[in-house]
């Protein structure tokens, strides 16, 4: 967390040196161990490396969704999917628990989550309040770049959450990055300080920073819990009484079952200073754009073959999560590759060996974005700050619904987008660099002024 962003040489050598590092085998298996990095096969090619990182994605998916003990650690006495239950990542800290009002210090890692008043009278559950990836009240129900909410076939908005693991939590807390003043102090205290979360290390057998972004749909009468990883959630809608900030919404909290429909997992590893961006979806989410309309059998969660609604268009404003909306009509713009489909089939079959009805076999990897020209010291290069992402574009149909595609600067690229993330101290590139996470922008002022400086 304290080294300056480096300026390294031209592309080429870094990846090779990473590839020469020893790694464990990536044979498909069901393991609660979060992999420290991808396992690379020789000779390295674009497609072989993509396959290696896709394997990392599946192994991470299995480890993070492993059944958890009460303390959040994986229950190694059981196998994933025997029965659905709380997962490892669901014990991690949600952003609202870290970036608190008036920049208060986050509660300790193992402290229970605090609930809004509106939720306290309900039976305990997992708190879901975001309906987009953007944090504040104005944007609670939209996706990045105010592109709109995603509405399921029941007319209900999907809900999202972002959590981080203890390594990243500790990096934020120990450096005071959870408040605006804390960020200012961090950068002022040492002219070399910059935000740099820890990388996973196979040598040290340490798991570095990991972020998870999940999207959930409220399960309606036509949805079967057996098809989803399901959580009994407290679906919280913050109130808004200012018409200048959007529709008037009364604060509410409802206890409802929700099913997982999308999952980003973002892991900073020794071979990926720009992080590894893995994204999964429920297999029933949407058809691919290239699938002929007559072959879009479904049923899908976010597409109706009988609907005449325009494809991939957000609902009309105002966006009010308290009011039922016309279901979204979504297709996947960039189809899965054949290699990814094959890998998905392999892991889905493996999951079914533990339980033929495993809910986890209902999820599929969409793809993995990784830096093809990474630095070899886990520090970002100014000459190639994004590390030449592969593939160039990647979107989850539930989290980047309306920015799918392959248009530079307009379509979703995990690294290109998150490379724009900044801290609250934008006086120089050193201080503004937020290490590919927008979370630090959620820090509030200890004076009670939550707005960015």
């Amino acid at each position, binding site marked *: 967390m304290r080294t300056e*962003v480096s*300026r*390294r*040489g*031209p*592309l*080429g050598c870094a*990846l090779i040196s990473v590839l020469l590092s020893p790694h464990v085998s990536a044979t498909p298996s069901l393991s609660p161990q979060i992999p420290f990095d991808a396992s690379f096969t020789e000779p*390295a*090619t*674009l497609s072989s*490396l993509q396959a290696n990182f896709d394997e990392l994605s599946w192994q991470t998916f299995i480890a993070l969704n492993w059944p958890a003990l009460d303390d959040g650690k994986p229950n190694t006495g059981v196998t994933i999917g025997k029965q659905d239950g709380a997962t490892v990542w669901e014990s991690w800290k949600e952003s609202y628990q870290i970036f608190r009002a008036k920049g208060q210090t986050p509660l300790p890692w193992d402290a229970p989550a605090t609930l809004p008043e509106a939720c306290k009278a309900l039976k305990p559950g997992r708190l879901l309040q975001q309906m987009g990836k953007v944090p504040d009240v104005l944007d609670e129900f939209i996706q990045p770049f105010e592109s709109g909410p995603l509405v399921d076939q029941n007319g209900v908005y999907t809900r999202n959450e972002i959590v981080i693991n203890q390594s990243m939590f500790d990096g934020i807390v120990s450096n005071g990055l959870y408040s605006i003043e804390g960020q200012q102090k961090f950068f002022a205290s040492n002219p070399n300080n910059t935000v740099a979360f820890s990388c996973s290390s196979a040598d040290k057998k340490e798991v570095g920073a990991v972020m998870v972004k999940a999207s959930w749909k409220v399960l309606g009468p036509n949805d079967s819990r057996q098809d989803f990883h399901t959580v009994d959630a407290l679906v919280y809608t913050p109130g808004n009484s200012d018409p200048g900030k959007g529709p008037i919404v009364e604060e509410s909290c409802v206890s409802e079952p929700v099913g997982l429909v999308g999952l980003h997992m973002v892991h900073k590893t020794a071979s990926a200073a720009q992080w590894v961006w893995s994204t999964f979806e429920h297999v029933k989410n949407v058809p691919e754009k290239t699938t002929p309309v007559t072959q879009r059998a479904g049923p899908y969660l976010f597409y109706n073959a009988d609907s005449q609604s325009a494809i991939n268009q957000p609902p009309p404003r105002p966006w009010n999560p308290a009011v039922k909306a016309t279901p979204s009509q979504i297709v996947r713009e960039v189809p899965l590759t054949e290699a990814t489909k094959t890998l998905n089939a392999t892991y889905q079959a493996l999951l079914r060996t533990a339980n033929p009805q495993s809910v986890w076999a209902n999820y599929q990897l969409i793809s993995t974005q990784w830096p*093809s*020209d990474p630095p070899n010291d886990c520090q970002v*290069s*100014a*000459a*190639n*700050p*994004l590390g*030449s*992402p*592969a*593939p*160039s574009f990647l979107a989850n149909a539930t989290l980047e619904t309306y920015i799918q595609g392959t*248009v*530079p*600067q307009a379509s979703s690229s995990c690294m*290109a987008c998150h*490379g*724009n993330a*900044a801290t609250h101290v*934008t*006086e*120089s*590139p050193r*201080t*503004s*660099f937020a290490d590919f996470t927008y979370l630090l922008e959620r820090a509030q002022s200890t004076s009670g002024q939550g707005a960015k400086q």
Partner: protein
Amino acid sequence: MSTDLVNFIGLSSALIGISTEHLAPTIDPVGLPPIFLDYVCARVPPEALNALLSQYATLAADHVPPDEIARQVLAVPGQQKVPDAVLVARSIMKLWLLGVWYPPFAGPKFDGSAVVSDQAYIYSWAWKIAQAHPMGYSESFFGYWNSTPPSLEALTGVSANGQQGALS
């Protein structure tokens, strides 16, 4: 990789002074070289392109240094009309540097100049040589404009020594 593509990359490297490792990295998610070659093949008479690639292959096989290869390929003897091969070579240089195809000469396949693709524009080499970024697209982090750009060598593999105006 086809022989033509290998020769096309080698010829391009000699012409614009950027190494083949930079023009066509082993791990290349963008993949411009085959796109460029296909684009050129569709717009230049085969005999002109083949002559150019053959000339390069012969010189490279003789271990002629890249600068000398470029000098010979671009040479215009005496007061003669500029040979077609030289015109094609010049267009290939512009293609790599600007991401734009400028037809080398009028002919049946003459269809005007064009930006080859969004990626060709973004990753054309003029931007890195200028230690800048394309208009409308930057991968640098917030506030980069407040810092000295990365060195010419870091961006292109070419030392700034002796390069007028370049920042090392």
